């Protein structure tokens, strides 16, 4: 009787301390970034010495401000998503609707491997690809925005495939079969019934992919992100990016003011990524609302 009680007490202690430790670590990290970064949030952080309106209309360049890096990250994200979503969506549809048992297992194995490949290896692949294209296709191509987006698209492809497949497969059997029973073709079923119903799951996957592209540093480190480039002008050019800026500043700040901009950048990136995450929560909750009230 007594030994059981102490074992239980240990477990309770264990669980509570685990929860407290993790919460403490999170508070330390968030608190530190917010505390140090909040004071730096002003127009100068984003636009340096350039007037904001001139910067936003691209009339004048911004030096020593976050604006080019934010724009660079934006371009990167948009391009990567444009490349990854169609491919991932189609693959996910194939896996959920058309693949047979064995084929599904094999494909899933490959995509699990792709999901597990470290981001630096994907970046290395991107770099090797850039050099290969540079030597054999066109001297204009090198590590650049386009190559980075390709590599990032590869990085997030498994997310999109997985969430699409799970969303489609998770639909209840009666919804999946009704249209078919009424004579619709497979494709019509997918297009008019299944996809609209799994939209929230797919959207969650896309937003997770967006978040992943925004925060990744290892891939862009090797494929074209640089210390100073201004606003991205061409797909084949170098560019700045927010996570790279944070990494760069963390070790190469020339004075305390520059270090403070690093905190500001960290806060901005944190807000962007956590904001995207919060959006996925909202989407999931709205789905249950729809399912409950419109079924």
């Amino acid at each position, binding site marked *: 009787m007594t030994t059981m009680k102490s074992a239980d007490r240990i477990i309770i202690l264990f669980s509570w301390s685990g929860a407290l430790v993790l919460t403490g670590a999170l508070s330390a990290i968030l608190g530190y970034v917010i505390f140090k970064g909040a004071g730096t949030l002003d127009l100068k952080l984003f636009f340096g010495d350039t007037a904001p309106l001139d910067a936003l209309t691209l009339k004048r360049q911004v030096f020593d401000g976050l604006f080019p890096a934010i724009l660079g990250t934006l371009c990167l994200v948009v391009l990567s998503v444009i490349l990854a979503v169609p491919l991932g969506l189609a693959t996910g549809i194939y896996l959920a609707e058309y693949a047979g048992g064995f084929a599904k297992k094999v494909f899933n194995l490959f995509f699990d491997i792709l999901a597990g490949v470290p981001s630096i290896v994907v970046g290395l692949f991107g770099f090797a690809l850039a050099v290969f294209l540079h030597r054999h296709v066109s001297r204009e191509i090198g590590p650049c925005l386009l190559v980075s987006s390709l590599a990032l698209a590869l990085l997030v492809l498994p997310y999109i495939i997985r969430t699409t497949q799970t969303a489609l497969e998770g639909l209840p059997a009666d919804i999946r079969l009704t249209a078919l029973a009424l004579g619709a073709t497979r494709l019509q079923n997918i297009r008019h019934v299944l996809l609209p119903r799994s939209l929230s799951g797919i959207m969650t996957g896309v937003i997770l992919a967006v978040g992943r592209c925004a925060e990744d540093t290892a891939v862009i480190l090797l494929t074209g992100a640089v210390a100073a480039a201004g606003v991205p002008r061409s797909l084949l050019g*170098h560019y700045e990016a927010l996570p790279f800026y944070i990494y760069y500043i963390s070790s190469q700040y*020339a004075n305390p003011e520059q270090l403070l901009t690093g905190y500001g950048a960290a806060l901005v990136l944190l807000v962007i990524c956590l904001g995207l995450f919060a959006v996925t929560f909202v989407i999931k909750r709205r789905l249950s609302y729809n399912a409950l009230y419109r079924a």
Partner: protein
Amino acid sequence: MKKNGMMVVAGFMGAILFCCSSSYADDLSPFKGEKGTVKVSGGTAHIPVMKEAAKQVMTAHPDIQITIAGGGSGVGIKQVGEGLVDIGNSGRKPTDDEIARYGLKLYQWAIDGVAVVVNPNNPVRALTGSQLIDIFAGKIDNWKAVGGEDRKISLYTRDEASGTREVFWEKGLKKGEVASKANVVVSNGAMKTSIAQDPAGIGYVSVGHIDPTVAAVAVDGVAPTHETVTSGKYPIARGLYSNTKGEPAGLTKKFIEFLYTADGQKIISANGFIPAK
């Protein structure tokens, strides 16, 4: 050979500028009406100068884009040789093998020293050459052995692509080895911040990067200052080069020439280097 040619051009331009009571805009006027991109990468010591020069050019002529990356001298030479960038900076003279293989044209626009630095809280300000070699080899591992506090020495060194490291190893350590336990940092800026944050740290950094957050150490009685580097008294020195693959043309050429103009030289001196004509 090419340097002689550059000196003629620079001298010519200098004469013109001298005659036209040079104002700010004149040095930048060759860029008027130019569009396009110049990609620069390589030596991290060059970055502050590159950034400032690029800023001046781009502010006056917004159609021009100059992108600047670091990576170290090795990266600069390799990337310009492969054609991945237009200008590859290096903090060491490219080897004959590299020049031949890539067809490089060298442009030296500054002289810089490589100084041994410690944290400002560290009382040690002078070391002999052999002490330096032993410290970096790991043989001396406590500060008290060289007159400091009783504290283990934290070694910092640069990555393998670094020209700064190459020069320091050759001229400062006399090709002695660096202990494998040394922390590796990837740029002059990173070296500076690491030493500034670590009270027991010792490393080496470009003289142009020295500021109040780190303290320079005299080696064999010679402190690394502008005078001693220029006069050659401080032996651990190197040129700062911008290299191109073959003869530079257009915008690239103009950007390099800008470094030799009065404004360019002003930027170079302001960043702690000694402009080389």
